């Protein structure tokens, strides 16, 4: 039997591929990596690109990943794929958005207060109107 390496491609949201492969080619941060069985243990970051899995029967499978992390052990290769494009500024933008959302949530408090206040005033006005109405009816009699 030809030697194979077990390959797992997983993301936080789903398992993408799991099975034996003759070779796996991934876009490493420091260049493209071809991983054959009995590769030395290695950890690296991945950049967005294509993962090519060559199955033992010679068939090839392609997966697109938007970056991630890679772990290699002599008989197992694990691609921990990101579900989204990651970059310093992108993450920063996301963080800013979350902060803005928080500010809005706090600001809504004043909006909520205004609504409550308006409602109280409305209730008061309605009570006054009702009292007036009653008064008028009494006068007619």
């Amino acid at each position: 039997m030809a030697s194979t390496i077990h390959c797992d491609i997983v993301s936080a949201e789903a398992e993408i591929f799991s099975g034996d492969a003759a070779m796996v080619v991934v876009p490493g941060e420091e260049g493209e990596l071809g991983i054959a069985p009995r590769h030395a243990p290695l950890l690296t970051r991945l950049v967005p690109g294509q993962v090519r899995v060559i199955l033992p029967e010679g068939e090839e499978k392609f997966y697109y990943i938007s970056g991630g992390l890679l772990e290699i052990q002599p008989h197992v290769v694990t691609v921990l794929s990101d579900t989204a494009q990651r970059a310093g500024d992108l993450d920063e933008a996301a963080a800013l958005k979350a902060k803005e959302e928080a500010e809005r949530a706090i600001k809504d408090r004043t909006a909520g207060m205004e609504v409550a206040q308006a409602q109280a005033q409305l209730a008061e006005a309605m009570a006054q109107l009702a009292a007036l109405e009653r008064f008028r009816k009494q006068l007619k009699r």
Partner: protein
Amino acid sequence: MSGSKEIVGKIKSVQNTRKVTSALEMVSASKIRKAQDLMEASRPYSRMMRQVIGHLAQATLEEEHPFTAEREEVKRVGFIIMATDRGLCGGLNNNMFRKLLAEFRQWQEKDVEITTVVIGRKAAQFFRRLKVDISAATQDLGEQPRLEDLIGTVKVCLDDYREGRLDRLYLCYNHFVNTMTQQATFDQLLPLPPADEKPMLQYWDYIYEPNPKELLDDFLTRYIETLVYQASLENLASEHAARMVAMKNASDNANNLIDELKLVYNKARQAAITQEISEIVGGAAAV
């Protein structure tokens, strides 16, 4: 027969309510399954992560990563609070909030300040009324939460932690035990509690590209994001389960109410008939 018409109206309105609650019950029942599938799908990733982190932590022993190092003095704790976007799910959110308030009080007695991060509309609504700090918020995760939507919120917490504005970080969500039981759970995210791993027997090490420190940082960041993401899924499953049970109770109550109202209606009808007959008999006797 003056009262009977009103009673009929009331019965109709309760019947309409029952229609809505039983529909919601069925919708939630089917959504639980989907949420559970999502939970299942995210497990391999975190399992792999944990393995690699365990190894990395031992490889970079000389210098402990800030995320795993315990701090001596705790001045400010952060809470990531998962709640639902929508209501009608029984006491799910309120039970957790009540438990959280007790927790807050304990910290405040020790003069520790509290920062919250709210995920889900109900959490935002509740905690803005309280006088606690909200440093980040996310809403509308929907039926299929995506990790992407949580990255920003988690980053705010991690940055705060790195820069010393937070000394500890907790994750609060409803743990999905089964459809009948959900448990408000507080997990410590930072500093990351050490995994119970066996001592390494083999003396091999990875080749690192670039250096192990940066990689460990990447791994830990993603790991924490994954934990938060999984908590959001678990909370989603809990939400649907709680809603299903709440709606089932509401439907049962509506049934009881309808039965009682029918009884009242029949009695009123009977009384009206009896009265009419006795009037006719009385009239005939007078002639």
